[in-house]
């Protein structure tokens, strides 16, 4: 299956390990991702105002381009996904905005005909989890993985239709397919505090802490996510907890494709573990899931 691929700003800069692991694993899974040429930032937040269409210009441009390539669009970063999918729905339903945007940008009108998919959705569509299971040569047996969904993948569910917003299962399916154990922790659907941390990390303390504690309560070995901002907030909060709370044992946070890479038998070096804030290799080693690696 061939898709246009929208990596988004962070995956090309700060979280190259996320991007690399997406590329290496999708190649094995026959998911062909062709990076959209000249893509530009999605805007990071879907504009919630109704009186200005400016915030939609940038995501519309990417959507329109992907459609010209004739492919459905795959993205992975939760924020990109949220913005692109909602914009796609808006231009499908609102002719006035669509015309306004096309006229402004002087491009052909695009009415949301292509689909916007998260990589997990693209997998779900094509029996990807079955295929992963087949192609997993290093099943992550005994590894307790806490899937952290956060907000932007799930909500608003009526628009995104990603999964049940209160009881999602897609990450769990994914975790099962790589042979690991999904940890059911209640705060997996709660928000980490998002961009509020730009003003002060302290303000998101409560939100991030409860997620980490909830996962740690359920004895998770690893937390996975699909959102660089969640990753950042949880990692920063973990730094603080390590200092302030001696009972707290930090949990490595990974992008889900990093674990996928490991399960599909890629070299440990290519899984990008060295760039993670908390090294996952010791725990993976202790579970007998990697034999080499630095730590």
């Amino acid at each position: 299956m061939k898709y246009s691929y929208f990596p988004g700003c962070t995956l090309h800069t700060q979280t190259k390990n996320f991007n690399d692991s997406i590329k290496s694993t999708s190649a094995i899974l026959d998911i062909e991702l062709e990076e959209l040429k000249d893509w530009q930032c999605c805007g990071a937040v879907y504009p919630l105002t109704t009186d200005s269409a400016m915030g939609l210009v940038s995501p519309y441009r990417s959507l329109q381009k992907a459609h010209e390539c004739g492919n459905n669009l795959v993205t992975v970063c939760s924020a990109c996904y949220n913005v692109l999918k909602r914009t796609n729905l808006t231009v499908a339903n609102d002719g006035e905005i669509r015309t306004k945007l096309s006229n402004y940008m002087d491009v052909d009108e695009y009415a949301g005909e292509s689909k916007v998919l998260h990589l997990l959705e693209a997998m779900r569509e094509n029996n990807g989890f079955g295929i992963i299971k087949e192609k997993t040569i290093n099943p992550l047996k005994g590894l307790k993985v806490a899937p952290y969904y956060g907000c932007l993948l799930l909500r608003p569910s009526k628009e995104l239709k990603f999964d049940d917003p209160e009881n999602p299962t897609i990450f769990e399916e994914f975790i099962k397919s790589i042979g690991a154990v999904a940890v059911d922790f209640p705060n997996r659907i709660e928000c980490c505090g998002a961009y509020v941390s730009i003003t002060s990390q302290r303000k998101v303390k409560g939100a991030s802490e409860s997620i980490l504690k909830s996962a740690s309560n359920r004895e998770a070995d690893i937390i996975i996510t699909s959102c660089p901002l969640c990753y950042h907030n949880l990692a920063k909060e973990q730094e603080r907890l390590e200092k302030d709370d001696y009972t707290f044992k930090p949990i490595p946070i990974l992008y889900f494709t990093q674990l996928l890479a490991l399960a599909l038998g890629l070299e440990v070096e290519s899984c990008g573990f060295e760039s993670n804030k908390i090294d996952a290799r010791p725990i993976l080693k202790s579970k007998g899931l990697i034999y080499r690696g630095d730590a």
Partner: protein
Amino acid sequence: MSTKTKTEIASMIKRIELISGESLFKCYQCGKCTAGCVMADEMDISPYKVIRMLQLGLVEKALKSESMWICAACFACRERCPKEVDLAKIMEALRVIQIREGKPLIEPDQVDDKVIEEMPQQGIVSGFRKYN
């Protein structure tokens, strides 16, 4: 006390409804938004109360509150609201009104260099989109 006339307040309410596309008077104050809000603890005025103030015409008080800047737009409230009120959009309308009046929460040069260095690009962009 409000310094605005009744008509001015009414037009501010209308403006909030226009920008957000939400009807403020649909809300019946059940508090479900607040019950599940992970940021409510940080807010000076609870989310449901922000709507209540607007219903009562206390627009200036609502605009002075910090709550809208604390809202992380995670949509948990919108997801669960039995009256299908999108509170995130109402918070956005309040932010936008302040920003358009030249009162953003932050200016780029106020943000700590360390934050800019550590925060993912996605976070920086969203922060500035919401706060400036």
